[in-house]
């Protein structure tokens, strides 16, 4: 827990804006620079800032460890799941156009969004886990 009032105030002020910006970068991956990898790193850095300023216990209450482990697996499962939907509908693996047969273009965009969301979840969870582990939270 940082004892400096200045740092706690400014860090606490910044924390929600970093998360909003990370969400913006994730969703805007198809229009401008961005996408899953960048947004994942931004989310992880927001929570690392929170952990440095308010202590590991407060961050654990905010984002429990089992949730981080769960999202780490969910990201990859989401990606593979979108691929398997293509197989189930009779087309090839990772075919996005079967998600909405009436409008294949919209289905492609939906597929890209889902896949990038999966990537973002996994990257955020992995980087957060790595920094937590190296910082001394064993087990």
């Amino acid at each position, binding site marked *: 827990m940082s004892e*400096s009032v*200045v*740092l706690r105030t*400014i*860090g606490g*002020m*910044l924390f929600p*804006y970093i998360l909003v910006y990370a969400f913006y970068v994730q969703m805007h991956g198809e229009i401008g620079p961005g996408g899953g990898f960048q947004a994942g790193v931004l989310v992880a850095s927001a929570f690392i800032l929170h952990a440095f300023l308010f202590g590991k216990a407060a961050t654990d209450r905010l984002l429990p460890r089992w949730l981080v482990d769960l999202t780490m697996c969910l990201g990859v499962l989401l990606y593979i799941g979108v691929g398997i939907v293509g197989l189930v509908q009779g087309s090839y693996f990772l075919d996005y156009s079967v998600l909405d047969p009436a409008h294949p273009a919209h289905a492609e965009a939906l597929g890209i969004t889902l896949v990038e969301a999966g990537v973002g979840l996994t990257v955020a969870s992995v980087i957060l886990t790595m920094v937590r582990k190296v910082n001394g939270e064993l087990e």
Partner: protein
Amino acid sequence: MLNYLADGLLLLGGFFAFSGSLGILRFPDFFSRLHPAGTSDTLGQLLILGGLSLRVLLDSPDAGLSVGKLIAISLLLFITTPASTHAISRVAHLAGLKPWTGEANNDGEATDE
């Protein structure tokens, strides 16, 4: 005329950023080196981003979004640069670093190293 104002702001901001870097090299002591790093850089980025937003207002027809984004970046840097300078100087003070008092043979270098 506004063209010259935009270019002038950019050059002035560049001058302040350069003088900040020069100060980091030339000042004698850790704490006095933090002054150019923190305050001079903040003023430099304010001027540079102000010049850039003026330039984008003059050059392109629909520039409201770009100016808004530049203002947001400038606000973020304006808030975080002094906070990080405070963090650095606080850690140095807690670690026991003493400021340079101007004696002849003490060149104020870090005590460990």
